[in-house]
């Protein structure tokens, strides 16, 4: 190639590299937005559960929260619909590193809402369906790794959910349920750690979360054993005393 040919060739390389960088930049931004939306959804779910702490029925509160969560996540799903063209054919794999973080955060949020609704782990097919069009055609292929890594993050949120929910009515019972659930998750995921390197690191976070929940459940058991009263009655007693103190403080506020 002569001098001038080199210049022409490098011009075409420049176009190629610029196109790559531009698309990458777009995907990073979109992914960052998706991460933020998903994080906000998770915050929202925690908030909705917490705010309605005095409500009568757990199921209802959780269902309502999940519903609002799904609504908010529709924004994410629309964003993915919009990215469809960017991720066609082998493009998904090319930009996987840019897409994965947001996608995993989305799966974390979606699985949290699903857990509130069903009390179980969202299946792979449901996640793939949520990022497919109405004909069931996927916007891009969901990888097993992203699916598992997203779910693995869920256990941390469930730990927060269990511990901050302790003072809710029925929070103690709920904490025990979550404990059993996270235990199963950990055992299930263990099987996949030889295949997915990042899962190994996340499993140790899951183990920590699990031990935090176990410690919480332990503290509940120790105390209920000491007083030897059924948990519901304990809840009622504590609730009524906190309540009376709270309304008293409320009075003071009005002064």
């Amino acid at each position: 190639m002569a001098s001038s040919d080199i210049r022409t060739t490098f011009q075409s390389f420049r176009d190629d590299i610029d196109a790559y960088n531009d698309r990458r930049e777009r995907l990073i931004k979109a992914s960052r937005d998706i991460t933020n939306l998903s994080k906000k959804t998770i915050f929202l779910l925690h908030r909705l559960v917490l705010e309605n702490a005095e409500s009568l029925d757990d199921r209802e509160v959780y269902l309502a929260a999940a519903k609002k969560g799904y609504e908010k996540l529709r924004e994410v799903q629309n964003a993915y619909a919009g990215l469809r063209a960017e991720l066609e054919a082998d493009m998904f794999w090319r930009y996987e590193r840019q897409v994965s973080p947001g996608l995993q955060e989305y799966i974390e949020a979606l699985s949290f809402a699903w857990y509130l609704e069903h009390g179980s782990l969202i299946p792979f097919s449901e996640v793939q369906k949520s990022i497919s069009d109405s004909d069931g055609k996927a916007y891009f292929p969901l990888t097993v790794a992203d699916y598992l890594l997203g779910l693995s993050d869920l256990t941390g949120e469930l730990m927060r959910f269990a511990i901050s929910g302790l003072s809710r009515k029925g929070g103690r019972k709920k904490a025990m349920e979550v404990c059993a659930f996270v235990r199963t998750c950990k055992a299930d995921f263990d099987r996949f750690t030889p295949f997915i390197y990042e899962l190994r690191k996340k499993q140790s976070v899951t183990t920590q979360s699990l031990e935090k929940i176990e410690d919480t459940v332990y503290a509940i058991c120790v105390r209920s054993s000491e007083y030897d009263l059924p948990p519901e009655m304990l809840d009622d007693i504590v609730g009524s005393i906190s309540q009376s103190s709270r309304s008293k403080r409320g009075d003071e506020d009005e002064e």
Partner: protein
Amino acid sequence: MDPSELDQINAFLEGDSELREKIKDQVNEFDKKARKMVGLLNRIHFTPTDALPALLESVKPILNDCQAVIKALADSVPPNQFWRWKDMWSNSLRTAVFAAVLVEYLSSGQLASLQQVSEQLGMKEEWKDRVTLTVEDYLQGVISVVNELSRLAVNSVTLGNFDQPIKISAFVKDLFVGFSMLNLKNDTLRRRFDSLKYDMKKIEEVVYDVSLRKLTSVPTLTST
């Protein structure tokens, strides 16, 4: 190189490093006051309820003294250079916020707002390009207060004050709901917020013990 330009540059470089020394000295002063307040406030954990007002009163003058140090800082920092130097004093400032908010809560049961704390520390609107109280510094201070209150809930029971944990529980729950309304991205803040739930849990346990004890072993004591 032009000699006059050289002199100018040299003067600038020397001025800069003197400025750093000067600010550092003032931050040291600030830090001493902040630590002194922390030392005094540590006594809330073994001060009986009726002696608490006196203890809080002893902290207030030091809080007031902070105004002078903060003013000195504002006088030292060149216009527009708040962001350049703020990391030097943000630890002391957060401790001062902690003290102000804790004193206010223990006095009135109320949360001092950013605006109130800012005023109490004598921050002037016209300094805001040199020294100001940022949202992050305020929130960090508030979280430290919650950490301290979970310890206080335990110790006030030891001192025989069974109502304190219940009041603290209500206050902290409110704060927790407040914090969960914020969309925190900032890593440090988020992590510190996360830790609040353990404080809540500890306080809950105390409330639990106290409530049940009142009903089971000490039935004569009722909440007033």
